[in-house]
């Protein structure tokens, strides 16, 4: 199945993932939590994906707790 490319945000811990999800929702964005393989992120098995067009607004919303890494394009 072909999937649209997404922006993947990697965080250092699950607490950061949860905080980021909350901040993104409050900013009116549509984050989706996804499991990621250990080779992508050894510290936390969950990450956040967004539509690529939301990149700018997302990084602004996460200014205080920026992701450790971003991957784009990401296809599940």
């Amino acid at each position: 199945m072909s999937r649209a490319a997404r922006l993947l945000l990697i965080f250092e811990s699950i607490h950061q993932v949860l905080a980021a999800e909350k901040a993104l929702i409050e900013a009116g964005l549509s984050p989706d939590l996804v499991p990621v393989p250990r080779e992508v992120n050894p510290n936390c098995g969950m990450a956040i994906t967004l539509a690529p067009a939301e990149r700018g607004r997302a990084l602004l919303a996460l200014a205080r707790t920026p992701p450790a890494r971003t991957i784009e394009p990401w296809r599940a």
Partner: protein
Amino acid sequence: METLDLRHLACPEPVLRAKKAIAENPDSVIELRLSGAASLANVTRMARTLGAEVEARELPGGEYTLTVRTGQPEPALEPAPCEPEAQPGRATVLLGNNLLGVGDERLGRILMKAFLKTLKSVQPLPREIIFINNGVQLTTEGSEEIPTLLELAELGVDVISCGTCLDFYGKLDKVRVGIVGNMFDIVVRLNRAAKIIAP
């Protein structure tokens, strides 16, 4: 023609009694009186799995008459061990809650999300996912897991929500993926499962 009044019996009693009647009356016609759409759906599905032809007629007051033409008994839901349909290796997943594990609710929510999304990528795919008790929150309106479950269903995974549980939570008309099953369905599926995953 035998007539059986199965109205106002608690689930899964109508299915059990209808199944017995079908088994005892091969190559004949049985008329079943039923109350409630869920009962009608459950009995109809069971009868068809036994190879019977069914015709439903709606009566006033949410009641139904189901005419069942039975054939030779074929217990399709209880296959013999060597029947190819058994598909050894495909697991049955039983989810009794909308959260995964016991502990923090936020963590339980995302663990369930991760679990369901990861299920899509395992081989062989599970044969079915059964949702009971608070697990039916995942298959009903408002669940953020509906898209994942729809994908699993498209991949051939049966998604079954416990009808009694839906009724208890007032969500019988809010199911957005899969089918509604009763305890008979659920126990038969668990009993024939190659393996059961109940995280």
